[in-house]
């Protein structure tokens, strides 16, 4: 037997194992707040006009300012804009700016605001906030002085200032096109950022609204919810965004963390497409509205931590039609309507996905509840990353959710004929006229009353079954103080400049 002692021995000589220096957890840096969010991966940018994810919005809030900001009910508070007024027609607006400076020391001027709004309105940029500035006639808008600008609209809109506080309406220095190391006027300065990776910002000592209470802010991408909670519980981060209801229940009473639970912030709903059978038949629409048990859905799909919905968006927000009586389940009426329409045993799919932790349970429950009234409904799970794009054109019934935004904006997008997000295919000249009248009404209470009338119409025939509102849960470590509970998209959410570390 020929042997190859050398080669064989060499093959079997094992490399000594480098011992792993287990150094435990790193010493905590009191000046740096670490916050964990689900991230968007390599497509992320710091361009504030592109804020599709909450992490994008939180970073934009740290680096930039908006002219106004939303209170918890989406009423406005001034930020960079000190004051604003319109003419009697609601087409000409004047905005006066407060004294504020960008991180490089340049003052924030009317030109910067115009440049920012122009960018957002540019169709090529495909900004999610574009609709708020679609009516601006930039050719006739101008900077009156460094601190004052005049904007002209193509149609009256007394709700126009709401758009200035929307996520994505941040002000950037005039001429900015590159956002790899952006300059803003916000409470934090840019230090470093990798798309899909961490972002580090340092406090802006000369912030016009007072220097932040922490030295540094670090965004840590953790997409998996369980991993976010684990990172928080083991002290790797001090803030974990967006936790499931089950996790919130588990962490209640845990001495290591406090929960920031914004009640009823996210509408959970079912879209019924009115342009296709079966919901071209109004009786079947009414049957489904009466056949769904909203209490049971809240108890099970939202773990009892949410609120019951009344088929309208924006419970608790400015302009919400609170006077409309709560719709309750009426199984007999629903069954009778199904029979009357001759639709017993009618089969259709209920589109769902795992975009939201409550969707799967809700889809199962709704299917069962509708089976009880004689409809044969089966959940159809679609891929989460393309779900909202797909349900625009596919299926007849689909679960949806909408976070906090002004009620007027929601009505405009969701129910106006040809609205940008009118998935349900609702079309009513009467409703559109109400919205137009409201937009042209200067008096706020009269305007909100008109929005209330518009909501009465869609409550019955809009094709949206808003069955509940889920709670938005954030957990922070006991080291953190100064953060308050607020719905995402509103100003006090993710205000890390107000955080303190002990």
């Amino acid at each position: 037997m020929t042997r190859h002692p050398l080669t064989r021995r060499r093959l079997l000589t094992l490399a000594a194992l480098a011992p792993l220096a287990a150094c435990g957890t790193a010493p905590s840096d009191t000046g740096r707040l670490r916050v964990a969010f689900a991230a968007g991966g390599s497509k992320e940018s710091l361009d504030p006009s592109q804020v599709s994810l909450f992490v994008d919005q939180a970073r934009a809030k740290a680096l930039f300012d908006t002219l106004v900001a939303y209170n918890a009910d989406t009423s406005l508070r001034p930020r960079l804009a000190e004051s604003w007024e319109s003419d009697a027609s609601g087409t000409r607006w004047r905005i006066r700016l407060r004294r504020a400076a960008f991180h490089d020391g340049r003052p924030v001027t009317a030109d910067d605001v115009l440049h920012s709004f122009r960018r957002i309105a540019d169709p090529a940029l495909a900004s999610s906030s574009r609709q708020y500035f679609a009516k601006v006639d930039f050719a006739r808008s101008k900077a009156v002085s460094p601190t004052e600008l005049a904007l002209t609209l193509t149609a009256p809109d007394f709700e126009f200032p709401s758009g200035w506080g929307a996520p994505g309406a941040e002000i950037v220095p005039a001429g900015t096109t590159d956002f790899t190391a952006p300059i803003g006027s916000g409470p934090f300065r840019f230090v470093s950022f990798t798309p899909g990776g961490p972002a580090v910002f340092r406090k802006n000592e000369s912030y016009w609204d007072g220097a932040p209470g922490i030295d540094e802010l670090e965004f840590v991408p953790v997409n998996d919810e369980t991993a976010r909670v684990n990172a928080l519980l083991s002290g790797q981060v001090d803030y974990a965004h967006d936790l499931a209801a089950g996790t919130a229940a588990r962490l209640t009473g845990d001495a290591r963390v406090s929960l920031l639970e914004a009640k009823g912030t996210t509408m959970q709903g079912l879209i019924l497409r009115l342009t296709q059978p079966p919901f071209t038949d109004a009786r079947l629409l009414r049957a489904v509205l009466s056949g769904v048990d909203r209490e049971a859905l809240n108890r099970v799909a939202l773990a009892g931590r949410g609120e019951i919905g009344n088929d309208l968006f924006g419970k608790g927000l400015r302009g919400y039609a609170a006077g409309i009586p709560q719709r309750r389940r009426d199984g007999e009426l629903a069954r009778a309507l199904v029979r009357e329409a001759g639709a017993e045993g009618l089969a259709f799919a209920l589109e769902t996905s795992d975009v939201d932790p409550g969707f799967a349970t809700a889809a199962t429950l709704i299917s069962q509840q509708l089976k009880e009234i004689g409809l044969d409904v089966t959940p159809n799970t679609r891929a989460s990353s393309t779900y909202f794009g797909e349900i625009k054109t596919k299926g007849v019934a689909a679960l949806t959710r909408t976070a906090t935004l002004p009620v007027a904006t929601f009505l405009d997008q969701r129910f106006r004929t040809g609205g940008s997000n009118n998935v349900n295919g609702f079309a009513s000249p009467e409703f559109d006229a109400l919205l137009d009248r409201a937009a042209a009404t200067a008096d706020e209470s009269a305007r909100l009353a008109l929005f209330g009338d518009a909501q009465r119409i869609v409550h019955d025939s809009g094709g949206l079954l808003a069955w509940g509102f889920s709670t938005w849960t954030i957990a922070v470590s006991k080291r953190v103080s100064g953060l308050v509970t607020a719905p995402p998209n509103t100003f006090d959410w993710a205000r890390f400049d107000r955080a303190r570390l002990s």
Partner: protein
Amino acid sequence: MPGHTVRRLGFAVLQAMVVLVATFAVTALLPGDAASVVLGEQATDEQVATVRQRLGLDQPLLDRFGNWFSGLVTGDLGRSLVTGAPVTDEIARRCAATAVLAGVTLLVLVPLALGIGVTCGLREGSRIDRALNAVTLFLHSIPEFVLGLLLVAGFAVYTGLLPATAAGTDFTARPAALVLPVIVLVGRQLCDVARQLRIGIAERTRGPVAEHLRLLGLPERTVVLRHLLPAAAAPAVQQLARAVEGLLTGTVIVESLFAITGLGTGFVEAVQNRDIPQVQGYVLVFAGVVVLGNLVADLVAHRLTPRRELVTW
């Protein structure tokens, strides 16, 4: 041997081609495309149409594959549909974490499997053999994410001994963040490799060759390490190559569980974004690793047990 290697390589290239064509087709068949993903929930139809045109998604599938393939031949993997950056940039950025993870896993796995395999093989049926077998089998049968969560709960969340995730750090800065992910990956693969060795050793230690060597008066150590182990190691080496494949799938789960920015999470993200060129880039890397791993394993196994040794006695 050279002929054997060339044949193996040729076959490997063919395999990789089939995988690439299949991946392209499957990703293209997924519902939705990069344009709708990039634009998000609020996109209007016109916006989607504009972006589709810009990304060339409105061209026929065959043309797109042709373009991509002609780029590949010239060594150009194309650009990501989502970021516009070269596909290789993203892969290079994520490579390090996964390479460290897989490398350290192998560094732990090989000696551990050797030790367990030889120990159990020599003491077949003993208490230690049964105990080690039970442990490795348990580790093998428990899914990665379950084991990972148990370890995180025990070693990070409740005791604070180790970091729970790699969030906001990298392995060079905090090697401790490697411990739990490596345990999970090793645990999954240990059983197969150790078992192959165990069986090989157990069979040979009773066989005529071992008998003969012992009769010649060679010490038992020499008999086992010099003569039995190399032959017994051949199937284990091939099993190790399969373990490398297992590691690739394992890293996808482990990386998301421990918030590691690596190839696994990158691949999932690329699929979710319907970013076909980026997906193809990852598939090329994965296919390359698998093919190379198997090739090396074959050659090593060949070297350990040259088929000719019996003939040219």
